[in-house]
């Protein structure tokens, strides 16, 4: 099989370049065989047999559309250039082929699953790409930055090497900060039997700590009986799910659920993140052999929706700037929260213009699915891969893009910078604390 020669194929990443040197034909064959025959069964077989190579999935993909319909970027081509070949050759492929497969699967697909809504057979193309990632992960061929987050999950049980003392210290610092705004704000740690355990992703304490303070204010105003764990298990993020290290993925999710069980909470409310929802509610339970999560898990969108709808939080003065929305794949296409998101945004903001296409059909941010975690070497490729997102956002004329997802947040901020859109990205939480009615 001829390898693709493109600018992307020349990007330097030790996670791919150095690791393929250690591959032997036997090792590749063994891993491919294991993943194709032991870890996957019916769906893989059905999808390979059913696909009629019609190419109707192409128009679904933001990378294909953004790259002027480059045939190699259609979802089916990404499968052809990776999995079909692995199946056909029964794993008899070169290390360079594995490098190419890793590049395509990790950096050119955000696993957003938009394409599975365009396939007449409902073939889950992102699932096929995840099989490729799994193979690459077992071979140790993973973009270095992404592998580092997985290593962090393995060593510290959180994504960003946050130590326990730093975690507790950050919460106390944010409790103090929030207390200056609204007196009496607490971040209750380890409160057994609370109604709500609030969990976040590790980038919050690491680089966006004010979001924790914001949530403390919202909880105070709404009068919620809540708690956060002081131990490992507070992080609901899961990059191991995207790097293909499902053993670590399962460990992370188990710890998160066990922490909630230990605290005997009625439900988990999670911060504004999409992949964390996917990991906690879908991929984690599946790996652990549970049909559904053991305790209800409420995403921030739904939580805010309930608070506003029930009147526990009242809006004092709506946000004035023109806003639009970035629908995250894992909570809108993955949970149907699009209408609730729009309700919340309309309650908070005066001037909302929707994107087109929207809701389930929104374009991917090209940051989720682990793509942004592949790090700086791949940023330019990601930006070129999402011109349609820039055009879609520019057409709204908004100044602020609201998105309840960390990956979308960083990805859209990158796109705004690269395409000079002159916009900013905000979480709902930032606008909510600005606009909500505070106690006297």
């Amino acid at each position: 099989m001829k390898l693709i020669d493109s600018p992307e194929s020349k990007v330097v990443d030790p996670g791919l370049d150095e690791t393929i040197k250690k591959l032997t034909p036997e090792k590749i064959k063994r891993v491919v065989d294991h993943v194709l025959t032991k870890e996957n069964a019916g769906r893989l077989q059905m999808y390979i047999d059913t696909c009629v190579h019609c190419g109707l999935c192409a128009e679904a993909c933001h990378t294909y559309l953004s790259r002027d319909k480059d045939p190699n970027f259609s979802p089916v081509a990404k499968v052809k250039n990776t999995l079909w070949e692995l199946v056909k050759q029964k794993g008899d492929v070169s290390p360079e082929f594995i490098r190419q497969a890793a590049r395509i699967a990790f950096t050119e697909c955000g696993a957003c699953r938009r394409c599975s809504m365009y396939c007449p057979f409902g073939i889950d193309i992102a699932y096929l790409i995840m099989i490729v990632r799994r193979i690459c992960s077992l071979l140790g061929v993973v973009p270095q930055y992404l592998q580092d987050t997985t290593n962090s999950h393995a060593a510290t049980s959180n994504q960003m090497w946050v130590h326990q003392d730093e975690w507790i210290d950050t919460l106390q610092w944010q409790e103090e900060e929030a207390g200056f705004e609204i007196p009496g704000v607490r971040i209750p740690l380890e409160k057994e039997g609370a109604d709500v355990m609030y969990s976040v992703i590790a980038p919050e304490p690491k680089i966006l700590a004010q979001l924790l303070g914001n949530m403390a204010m919202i909880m105070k105003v709404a009068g919620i009986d809540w708690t956060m764990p002081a131990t490992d298990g507070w992080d609901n993020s899961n990059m191991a799910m995207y790097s293909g290290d499902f053993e670590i993925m399962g460990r992370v999710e188990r710890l998160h659920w066990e922490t909630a069980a230990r605290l005997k909470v009625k439900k988990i409310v999670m911060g504004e993140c999409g992949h964390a929802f996917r990991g906690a509610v879908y991929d984690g339970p599946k790996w652990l052999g549970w049909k559904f999560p053991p305790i209800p898990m409420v995403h921030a969108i739904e939580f805010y929706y309930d608070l506003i709808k029930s009147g526990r939080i009242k809006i004092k003065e709506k946000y004035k700037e023109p806003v639009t929305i970035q629908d995250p794949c894992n909570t809108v296409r993955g949970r149907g929260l699009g209408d609730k998101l729009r309700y919340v945004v309309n309650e908070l903001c005066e001037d909302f213009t929707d994107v087109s296409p929207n809701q389930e059909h929104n374009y991917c941010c090209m940051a989720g699915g682990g793509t942004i975690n592949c790090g700086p070497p791949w940023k330019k490729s990601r930006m070129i891969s999402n011109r349609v997102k820039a055009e879609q956002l520019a057409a709204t004329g908004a100044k602020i893009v609201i998105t309840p997802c960390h990956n979308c947040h960083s990805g859209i901020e990158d796109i705004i910078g690269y395409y000079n859109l002159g916009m900013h990205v905000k979480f709902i939480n930032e606008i909510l604390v600005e606009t909500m009615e505070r106690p006297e």
Partner: protein
Amino acid sequence: MYEFVRGPLVWLAFIVFILGSIYRLLQIRSQLKKDKVVFSYMNFKYGMRSILHWITPFGAVNMRKRPAFTIMSFLFHFCLIITPIFLLGHNLVWYESWGIHWWTLPERITNIMTIIVVAAGFIFALRRIADPTVRLVTAFSDFLLLLIVLAPFITGLFAYYQAFDYKTMITLHILSGCLWLMIIPFTRIVHMIFFGISRAYMGSEFGYVRHAKDW
């Protein structure tokens, strides 16, 4: 030759088609059982919701994005399945052989339907060549399959209009028709059998598990 294709081969074709289809269904069922999530998430309501959306013309966003292709594709599949079943000629043959027959379509209509299948098939082939996106993922086997699917329709037309030698043409027609039936379970045409399963699973995963639409 004619006697052979008219008799034993047709029997063989139907047996291979039916037993082959049952075999593929049983095989995929045992495979899907190993894939733990499939049967636990499969849900009748959401599975049907998805199937109905995708067998309705313009029932999905992707269909509305390419109206010409949608119309052609629906016509192709509809005529492909309906024409041979309700063709007058086929009914006469069945009546002669087995004493069974049912409602038939006027020949004028079935002629048009056959021409639609052939024309759409040719456009599919052209699309595979002309559209770089489809060309990249097209294998030689895709053309071969298309040819096998179209062959009974082309030879049927020739036979009906008595072009070339009738006897040869009708022999080729039955031969290619039998070939077509026999390869259904064992090639990508198996999508005819698997469509409902893959669609129902995706519909269930989107609707039942994820509370979202999949069209």
